[in-house]
């Protein structure tokens, strides 16, 4: 049965990406199918050694599922860009392999290049050409017929709201416009997987959130798989479905932002009631999802899982006992703490290598002009 299912029939998946009938047969068959078709990128012990000794990336393995936004989080010089450069076939790995839709980055480079889109850290558009000419050039290089590419370019320029500036030279663009143009250029071949290397580096807060909006829109409208690197924690938190924390060329932890945050101890609810003599510690401890309670006068410090849903339960519980809640605060752990927990350092203090720093400064300078 499984062999029959695996043979070649991809069409058992309907437009919404659900399995029509096959998954009903056996859970196992469904699971095997799931693994086979939902995995877009599979990285296996990827290693890059520069100059014979510097291990920029050290045996990294992970996989990215279809339709998800996968984030690489780490400080400058952790190996994020080197990994992305290897997966996008810009540099070849010292050892190990990665497969995108089953194509190897070592052997099937041409095939991979035509199905991926890359938005690099630096601005790469030709400043002396117009935005439109830049897009047209890249479309030609993907060998997209002009009849198709002209419409597609117009559509993409609309998407990133550069329609009005399309015929202007790129050197007249602002930093945010250039970043959006890079996004549009990365999409010109309608890639299956889009790689974004520090997509918001050096942008101001407003432009950053605009770029986030586009990225979310892309995921929704094009059902694309996105792989991004970032060293902004809030960015990883709000955009990514799963995050890999990378440090010194090694992956330390991969999980969803929520679970990562939970893993460092969960949420904290601080609850104050109107009666100082009463002790409801034992009662609170019995509630589901509560991990730990500390009493301090009228104040209870509760460590718990999914505090949002727990808080109303606690309030009604306190009310039923005849007390009143006078104050309630809810603290969720940030990725900052997660990062500190796993790498032993705060991300903010990190300094990258000289070249990395110079590159990012150059990009920042350009973005702000």
């Amino acid at each position, binding site marked *: 049965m499984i062999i029959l299912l695996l043979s070649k029939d991809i069409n058992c998946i309907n437009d919404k990406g659900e399995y029509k009938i096959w998954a009903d047969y056996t859970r196992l068959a469904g699971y095997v199918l799931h693994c086979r078709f939902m995995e877009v990128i599979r990285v296996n012990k990827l290693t890059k050694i520069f100059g014979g000794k510097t291990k920029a990336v050290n045996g990294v393995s992970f996989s990215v599922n279809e339709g998800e936004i996968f984030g690489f989080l780490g400080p400058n010089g952790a190996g994020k860009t080197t990994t992305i450069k290897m997966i996008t076939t810009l540099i070849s790995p010292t050892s190990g392999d990665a497969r995108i839709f089953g194509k190897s980055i070592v052997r099937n480079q041409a095939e991979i290049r*035509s199905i991926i889109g890359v938005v690099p850290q*630096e601005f790469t558009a030709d400043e*002396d050409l117009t935005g439109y000419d830049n897009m047209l050039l890249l479309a030609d290089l993907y*060998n997209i017929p002009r009849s198709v590419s002209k419409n597609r370019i117009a559509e993409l320029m609309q998407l990133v709201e550069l329609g009005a500036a399309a015929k202007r030279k790129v050197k007249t663009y602002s930093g945010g416009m250039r970043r959006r143009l890079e996004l549009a250029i990365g999409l010109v*071949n309608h890639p299956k997987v889009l790689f974004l290397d520090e997509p918001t580096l050096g942008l101001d807060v407003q432009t950053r959130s605009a770029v986030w909006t586009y990225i979310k829109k892309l995921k929704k409208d094009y059902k694309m798989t996105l792989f991004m690197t970032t060293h902004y924690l809030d960015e990883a938190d709000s955009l990514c479905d799963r995050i890999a924390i990378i440090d010194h060329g090694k992956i330390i932890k991969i999980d969803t932002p929520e679970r990562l945050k939970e893993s460092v101890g969960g949420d904290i609810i601080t609850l104050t009631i109107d009666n100082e003599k009463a002790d409801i510690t034992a009662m609170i401890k019995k509630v589901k999802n509560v991990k730990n309670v500390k009493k301090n006068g009228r104040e209870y410090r509760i460590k718990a899982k999914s505090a949002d849903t727990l808080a109303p339960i606690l309030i009604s519980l306190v009310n039923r006992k005849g007390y009143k809640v006078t104050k309630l605060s809810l603290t969720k752990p940030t990725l900052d703490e997660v990062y500190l927990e796993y790498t032993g350092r705060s991300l903010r203090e990190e300094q990258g290598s000289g070249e990395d720093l110079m590159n990012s400064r150059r990009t920042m300078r350009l973005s702000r002009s």
Partner: protein
Amino acid sequence: MKRTSVKNFSVEYIGKHKVAYFFKSVWSLANRDLKKWYLAPVLLIISLIQPVVWLGLFGKAFNLAGIFTNSSFNIPGLNIPKSVLDTIGNTFLLNSFGTTSYFSFLAVGMLAFIVLFTAMFSGMSVVWDRRFGFLDKLLTTPVSRGSIVLGKIINSVVRALVQALVVLIIAIVLGMSVANFTLVGVLDTFGALFLLAFGMSSLFVALGLRSTDWQSQMAVANLLSLPLLFMSNAFFPVSAMPSWLSAIANVNPISFTIEIGRSALLGITPAVPFMYDFLYLGLFAAILGAISIVLSWKLLKG
């Protein structure tokens, strides 16, 4: 959006028409560089200033014909008529340069000069593309590394030939002798210039493939181009050079190009039938072109 299989979009487009795709990508890349040039005439004019200055100032100031023929020079005691002196002067010129007009002699050299200097900048543009990240972007597209290099070479060849044509026109305006001009002669000259431009652009592009800073690229280009020019017959006939210099000048592709030009435009008899010159230049262009493409497979990386 419908779920699509992996094999679509560009994969299909490329798979079916590999050869057409190759030419399309080379032309798209060459046209990208050319666009900046023909859409900005100021650049074109600036790039012409140098050869025009050389032609106008050097060519006219270095008035060898004037020294030999227009002087009122005479030897005291002997009363040699001016016409005899002029004839002696002209014979001198004819013997060493093959023509009595040094300006025309130099003008053909200038055609090779502009080609060489345009080729020099083709290497620079590779370095700029790397610096500005454009090359990294190109390398993530399915375009072959050879196409990137060929695009640069074609761009440089087109620029070089257009500039050479402008220099030729200016030279004619400034008094180059057109007595021996034929259409075939002009075509022969530009054929030779094409091969020279192709070979030299390949050389400088290959030098720029791995370079990341333009200062060193510029230094190398300068180090090569001026000696290449002076170790050729661009300014002086090879026969008047010391043997070590003429040995180099005799294998210098620039000399071969200029020899074809002087024979085709000015009617100066070449040392060997210029079919051999063409053969030599063709080999030069083909070998350097091949080297730059092979090197690009190895050196064009992120």
